[in-house]
């Protein structure tokens, strides 16, 4: 992948370089700076030492993220496959339907799940009408994961679908010629070829799930603190930028590690991001 670096291409890239320096590199520097200083600005490792206290929260966030990602994958893969098998017109409509909820604010959608799931909510009033009785759903870990799956599912479907839509169909035909039935075709041909989409889908679901804070507050009733909640609290409530920054730094490192691991999965050795 050799790129020619002429003066012209440098000029074209310069707005992005300035942008990246201002809004990506500089904030990262601030995060690192705040992580290792105290309120007065002196160097300290105190914030890093506090991390052990938040270990359970980290583990819970990661676990919830993993579960949400797996559920998204299980739903999204067949979904993307089905969409990619339709005619162009149907495909366009279905992709639009997948994206349609994203036109509304993420906050409003999560808030309305509260009204759907609560004990006097839509589902439970239906249940009690048909005589099943109340099922307590809101303010549980399951509700938080449901919120994550609902909100981030499009980010899984779209990359997988875009890879599948561009698949070289002659491969599928070759596989069929060699005597593969439908299942074999999916397992041995479509699945391996859609790995790049799956990998970027997993990254795009896992990263926001691990770092979310709004979903856990509204659907978890504040009892399922995720690391995003703790970080938000440090900045908003406690005015403790230093601890908040060091928690963010650890979260970033964790995400980088998991993305590096994900890259190992992709056969072609392509980078995910």
């Amino acid at each position, binding site marked *: 992948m050799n790129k020619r670096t002429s003066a012209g291409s440098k000029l074209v890239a310069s707005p992005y370089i300035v942008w990246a320096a201002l809004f990506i590199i500089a904030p990262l520097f601030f995060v690192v700076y705040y992580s290792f200083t105290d309120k007065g600005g002196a160097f300290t490792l105190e914030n890093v030492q506090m991390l*052990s*206290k*938040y*270990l*359970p*929260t980290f*583990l*819970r966030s*990661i*676990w919830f993220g*993993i579960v949400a990602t797996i559920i998204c994958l299980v739903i999204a893969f067949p979904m993307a496959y089905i969409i990619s098998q339709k005619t162009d017109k149907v495909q366009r409509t279905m992709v639009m339907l997948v994206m349609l909820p994203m036109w509304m604010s993420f906050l409003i959608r999560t808030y309305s799940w*509260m*009204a759907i799931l*609560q*004990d*006097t909510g839509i589902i439970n009033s239906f249940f009690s009408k048909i005589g099943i009785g109340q099922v*307590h759903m809101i*303010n549980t870990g399951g509700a938080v994961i449901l919120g994550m799956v609902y909100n981030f599912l499009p980010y899984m479907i779209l990359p997988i679908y875009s890879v599948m839509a561009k698949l070289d169909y002659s491969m599928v035909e070759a596989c069929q010629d060699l005597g593969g039935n439908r299942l074999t075709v999916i397992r041995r041909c479509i699945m391996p070829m859609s790995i790049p989409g799956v990998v970027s889908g997993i990254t795009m679901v896992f990263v926001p799930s691990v770092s979310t804070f709004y979903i856990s*507050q*509204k659907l978890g*009733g*504040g*009892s399922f*603190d995720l690391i995003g*909640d*703790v970080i938000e*609290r*440090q*900045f*908003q*409530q*406690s*005015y*403790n930028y230093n601890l908040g920054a060091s928690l963010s730094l650890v979260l970033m490192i964790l995400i980088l590690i998991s993305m590096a*691991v994900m890259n*190992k*999965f992709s056969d072609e050795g392509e980078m995910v991001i």
Partner: protein
Amino acid sequence: MKKVLCAVTALLITLLPLTVAYSAPDGDIEALRGSTLYVYNWGEYISDGADGTVDVNAEFTKKYGIKVVYDTYDNNEVMYSKLKGGGVSYDIVIPSDYMIERMINEDMLEKINFDNIPNFKYIPEKYRNLDYDPTGEYSVPYTVSYVGLIYNTKMVEEAPDSWKVLWDERYTNNILMFNNPRDAFAIAQSILGQDYNMDTEEGWRVAAALLKEQKSVNPVYVNDEVFLKMEAGEAALAPYYVGDYFLMKENNDDLAFVYPKEGVNYFVDAACILKGAKNKRAAELYLDFINEPEIALANAEYIAYGSPNSAVYDNPDYEYYENELLYPEEGAFKTQLFKNLPPNILALQSSLWDDVKNYNATAASSERALFFGDSTQNNIDNGEAMTPVTIKYGICIGVFLLLCLAYVIFRTIRKKHREQY
């Protein structure tokens, strides 16, 4: 009731232009015409013209020609962080008592020239020079109110009179709780008979332990969702501000309110001018304007919190005139004001609050006996031992990682195997 309210406000709106006509603004006020005033206030904390009420900011602009840019915040800490973080500049903020004290200490507030606020005469002596602003140079009281316990009469067996009902296992999953440390701790402190402003670390730890113990009834930590949940009958009990109870009651008649016997937080929110305000004269005009009898009345009826303005609470037409919940007799129940906490206690409070939020509910039930049983309070375990939750999530993630690793190894071996041919 609503109709009467509408009629009254409609009447007020028609009267307003008259009052405008009679107060001829003098020269320096005239010079402010066309300038902008930045106001930073709590959410839902001003009459905004909804449902035919008076739109205070629009009326102010109409009267003085000064544009009002109005932003809102959820709580004192958010407001403080935003101002401290820099990048914003407001002229007026309306924080609560303890936050005003902190902001005065940190030199964030400007002294107010009370000559420019003639309507300050409506604020009686008992609301002036309170502890948070002993010299009375920095603040003009905006609301005075109390925290209390809202409950749903259909869902509780007997009318509660104590904060302890929030720890009652009969109402598991039906209890709401403040999602901010100061108010949440105040409830535990009331039960323990502690001072809200104590400066002993041990006392705060005991209060935190009591809050942790509440996890056994699975409380839901809420901010503004309290409205949605109490009005829908989603929860049986919620500690909240008395003014908001009236708003909830309009939508759900089963709700009732009580001041628990252990005592409650009494608070004053007051308007202040920020240091470095660019439009100080206009800010003083605004402070005067919100204390004009008609405007203060419109605000008091909209917000439904107690008003420190005598022109409001002595007005027989006022919707909450002599309301015994909003204006209780002095000494009817125990009250305490919040004060600014020293930095080490503030840091401890945030840290303990993180612990409370993180605390595991199943472990809580086994510790219930600590407070409501016979055992003493001294043997609370504050150690940071591995909780079952940590182990559970740790094992889950570990197994998952092992599976991933096994898969990668399997693939590598298979690949090598295939390459041999």
